[in-house]
């Protein structure tokens, strides 16, 4: 029996994004942003947008595949896919679903994308405004537990307390993103550097581990990647970036209601990371450059631990700014500025940055990386992550 895998079977041939804006600042409608990102990814790949025959997205994206297909006049739609779950938990899964579609023969040329103009719609950081809480929410909202930050904060309290990890470890994650953003003209936070004093003086969002700079901003924009079968990618303008491994989901009852997951203090990657490395045929020591979705810095830490990149008992020592910076750090992290400081494009900007690193065209380039990892939005369910590699890794 042939091995069931996506390793080396599909490649990202094009990446694209719009200008990134502060939330509410986009002059363009959300759907127009999606169109611009799709066209940019096609142009980057040297492929006629009418040849696109599939769309994969996540987080209940409002730019529907059928409307995109009609607006762009694509010849035929063969694959349309929405990955369950809110936020950016599905960012890596959307790319993987596109890869699965092209590898299986269901489609030939699939866009994975995210478009977001929060000024035109509700914001994430605000709680529910409905007068009555239904279902599980009845056991949460009346106690003032409503926002994503509040849903996840107690995982962080528990994990950091149990393991004696200090807030400074989270601060380093924020500092790395802001540091990288300063040289990135795409970054919303370029020109707004962050240092220890500014972080320490920032207001509490939630005690004990969420200061303002531990929390993502909200932004407007869109980003997209174009996924094609591996063979096709070889004839296109850029060196192909191959999908080596992809996994999504969550461990046993990770979505148990009212905070009843048996393994609670988790970003939900224990099984996902195992499956990811198994497909990619590599381990944490092989990752040259890392993009890890920051909804909140505590979730980044949990994601790093669950992917075997940091040991809890070494977190205080290892998670210092110098270790996380490109080009010289031991584990360069969020090298374009990430969600915190490039743009909160629900992690699609992290996929684009991983591709740029492997093409060796990144602004904060790590020397000669072969393998890049993208960890999707932590602590939601389902989560997903992705390992990408150059031709040399096949």
């Amino acid at each position, binding site marked *: 029996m042939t091995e069931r895998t996506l390793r080396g079977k599909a490649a990202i041939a094009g990446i694209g994004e719009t200008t990134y804006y502060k939330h509410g600042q986009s002059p363009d409608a959300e759907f127009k942003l999606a169109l611009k990102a799709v066209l940019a990814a096609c142009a980057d790949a040297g492929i006629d947008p009418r040849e696109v025959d599939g769309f994969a997205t996540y987080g209940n994206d409002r730019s529907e595949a059928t409307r995109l297909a009609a607006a762009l006049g694509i010849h035929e739609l063969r694959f349309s896919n929405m990955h369950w779950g809110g936020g950016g938990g599905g960012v890596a899964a959307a790319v993987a679903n596109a890869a699965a579609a092209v590898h299986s023969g269901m489609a030939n040329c699939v866009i994975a994308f995210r478009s977001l103009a929060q000024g035109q719609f509700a914001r994430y950081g605000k709680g529910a405004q409905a007068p009555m809480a239904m279902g599980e929410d009845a056991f949460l909202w009346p106690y003032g537990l409503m926002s994503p930050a509040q849903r996840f904060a107690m995982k962080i309290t528990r994990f950091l307390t149990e393991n004696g990890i200090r807030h400074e470890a989270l601060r380093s994650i924020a500092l790395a993103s802001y540091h990288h953003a300063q040289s990135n003209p795409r970054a919303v936070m370029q020109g707004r550097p962050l240092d220890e004093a500014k972080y320490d003086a920032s207001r509490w969002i939630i*005690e004990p581990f969420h200061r303002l700079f531990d929390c993502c901003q909200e932004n407007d924009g869109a980003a997209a990647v174009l996924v094609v079968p591996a063979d096709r990618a070889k004839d296109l303008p850029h060196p192909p970036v191959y999908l080596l491994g992809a996994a999504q989901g969550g461990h046993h009852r990770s979505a148990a209601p009212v905070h009843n997951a048996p393994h609670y203090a988790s970003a939900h990657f224990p099984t996902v990371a195992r499956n990811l490395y198994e497909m990619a045929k590599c381990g944490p020591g092989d990752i040259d450059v890392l993009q890890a979705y920051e909804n909140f810095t505590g979730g980044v830490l949990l994601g790093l631990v669950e992917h075997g990149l940091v040991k809890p008992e070494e977190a205080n020592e290892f998670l210092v700014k110098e270790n996380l910076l490109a080009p010289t750090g031991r584990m360069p992290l969020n090298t374009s500025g990430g969600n915190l400081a490039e743009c909160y494009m629900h992690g699609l900007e992290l996929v684009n940055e991983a591709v740029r690193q492997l093409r060796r065209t990144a602004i904060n380039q790590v020397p000669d990386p072969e393998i890049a990892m993208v960890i999707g939005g932590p602590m939601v369910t389902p989560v997903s992550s992705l390992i990408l590699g150059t031709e040399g890794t096949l």
Partner: protein
Amino acid sequence: MSTTNHALPPGLPAPSTEEPLSAPYWKAAREGRLLVQKCGGCGGHQWGPEWICHRCHSFDLDWAEVKPRGRIYSWETPHHPVHPALNGHGPYTIVLVELPEADNIRMIGNLVGAPGAEPRIEAEVEAVFEPNDEASPPYTLVQWRLVG
């Protein structure tokens, strides 16, 4: 309105108390009793309420009164108001309480009691039933305070 004894100001979303899956819990809370799901098949406690027992797949889920005592599994103190009702209110503490006598199921509530009471993982807590009689329909929230 007597809101001084309430953990949070009025105006937050009220719980829906008449949904079939959870109505017995809310009815008991009005009477100052803590009810949770207990499986007729395997005897396990389950929370939050669901139609099936996750252990044995029995649909025969009944309700059992449990001792309103637990210990703090985790906590958080939000400062940033995420709802208009919380504007100007200041920080408040949410606790995740584990019930050791009910298969370690966990519940969410606010930490109430003496001002400045410090939440701590593993600290013992007991339930405080917080009636919202002015609401229509009225409901009672289950809050928690440190013991001893």
